[in-house]
């Protein structure tokens, strides 16, 4: 047993899990506000990362300018996507809307390959030191940034949904659109805002992962990875999504440890969360924090 390795992996799991959690939260945000299951969530990471990469390598902008600019771009992008593609589909069957997001996912993956090629592109070095040592554990500097950003985003979500008028309006819309309208809330505006925030937050994760392992279409796999996280947490719980993400991150890394030490089956990292997903759906079909529809007779 290598305890050091285990600790290292658990730490990595927490950091990557926080990123999953951030993506899962933004997925849940769209689902809660507009009842759309967004299969193009991973493409938000992908496009955000490519946008930032392009600004940094092609325009040679420093990271602290390029990063915010790409986030601003993604915010507008999410909003435009909702207004142009999703808004006309309001009132259509759920399956049509899901198919539209699947279509968007394929379209944007192909578009990114066409624009930037099929090879993974590394980010220019951003931090003076690649790794820092914390209590004997090696942590990439960008992961520290990622952890800080994840925490900021979580706090931001909490503040937004508890105190800000737009956050409250969003929760009101998620609860009952008719009632929200009677209180002067514009439902189309809330939908557009939820997509904008979701794209913004996801692209933060996209850039972080891009900095660590290069930008490639593999980033859109995160859009699939969020499913175990959100199912674990309950599809309509923002806090649950965050915890689900962290659990999935740790689970992946522990599974890898177990696999490398004893099982040697290979590829447990990617598969373990989905095993967990199936087991959880069998035991708690509404997830750990999801709304249970109780029927009173």
């Amino acid at each position, binding site marked *: 047993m290598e305890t050091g390795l285990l600790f290292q992996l658990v730490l990595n799991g927490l950091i990557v899990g926080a990123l999953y959690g951030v993506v899962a939260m933004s997925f849940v945000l769209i689902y809660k506000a507009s009842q759309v299951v967004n299969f193009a969530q991973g493409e938000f990471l992908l496009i955000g990362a490519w946008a930032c990469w392009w600004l940094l390598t092609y325009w040679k902008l420093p990271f602290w300018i390029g990063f915010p600019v790409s986030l601003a771009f993604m915010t507008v992008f999410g909003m435009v996507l909702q207004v142009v593609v999703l808004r006309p589909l309001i009132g259509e069957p759920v399956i049509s809307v899901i198919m539209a997001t699947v279509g968007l996912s394929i379209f944007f993956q192909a578009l990114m390959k066409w624009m930037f090629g099929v090879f993974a592109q590394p980010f220019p070095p951003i931090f003076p030191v690649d790794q820092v040592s914390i209590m004997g554990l090696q942590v990439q500097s960008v992961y520290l940034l990622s952890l800080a950003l994840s925490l900021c985003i979580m706090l931001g979500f909490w503040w937004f949904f508890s105190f800000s*008028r737009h956050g409250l309006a969003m929760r009101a819309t998620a609860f*009952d659109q008719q*009632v929200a309208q009677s209180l002067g809330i514009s439902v189309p505006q809330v939908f557009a805002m939820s997509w904008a925030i979701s794209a913004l937050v996801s692209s933060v994760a996209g850039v972080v992962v891009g900095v660590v392992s290069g930008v490639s279409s593999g980033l859109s796999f995160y859009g699939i990875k969020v499913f175990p996280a959100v199912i674990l947490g309950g599809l309509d719980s923002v806090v649950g999504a965050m915890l689900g993400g962290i659990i999935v991150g740790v689970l992946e890394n522990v599974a890898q440890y177990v696999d490398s030490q004893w099982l040697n089956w290979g590829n447990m990292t990617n598969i373990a969360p989905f095993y967990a997903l199936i087991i959880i759906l069998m035991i708690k079909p509404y997830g750990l924090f999801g709304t249970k529809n109780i029927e009173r007779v």
Partner: protein
Amino acid sequence: MEPAILEADNVSLRFGGVKALTEVSFHVRRAEIFSIIGPNGAGKTSMVNCVSGRYRPTEGRVSFEGRDITRMGANRRAAVGIGRTFQNLALFGHMSVLQNIMVGRHHLMRAGFLRGMLHWGGARKEEIEHRRAVEEIIDFLEIQHVRHAPAGTLSYGLRKRVELARAVAVSPRLILLDEPMAGMNLEEKEDMARFIIDLNQEWGMTVLMIEHDMGVVMDISHRVMVLDFGRKLVEGTPAEVLAHPQVRRAYLGEDVGAEPVPA
């Protein structure tokens, strides 16, 4: 006599072949309590929904303060001064009482997304003003003791009161109440009647209300309209309405044979 604040002109509403409303015309005068009564399925809620913008009339027009609002979106009607409560409790169950009421202020807050987020400019000052308005409403409806409780955990009577508070927070000049006293006990009904009278007299709000409790309706309404099968039967003061033979038959259980119904 006060001028009309709300006018419905020949409003018809059809869902496919079902006629929910047929050529209903009425007006509500400024500063009055106006009630709509009628049996279940008479179209009372449909009429209120046409005013609040949830439904668009198939024919006819609705105007508010002289302005045609027939096609106006439901959310914009809050801004022109119309608020409402719902027949089935529609509180945001996971939010606290305070947050529920704050949502009602939404359309009055000007600070945009970024400004609000960063708390710069007038955002802070604005929020304090809204807090004050909300406190006033909480005091008025006597719900101080539950302000931080999640709305879903409250008793039925209290939830009805919080829902009224949320509609009042919109600062409407016309407030639509869909069965504000349904399912309440006598004491709760008396409280609610008092709140409605105060809203009307001290807060200067015009009230358009649907209610089944005839005692309350006749006590507090200035004028009453009776709907039956989507048509207006009669409109007038409580005394005039009670004198109408069909109303007496329907509500007071008078013998049909005793007074012939006019054709």
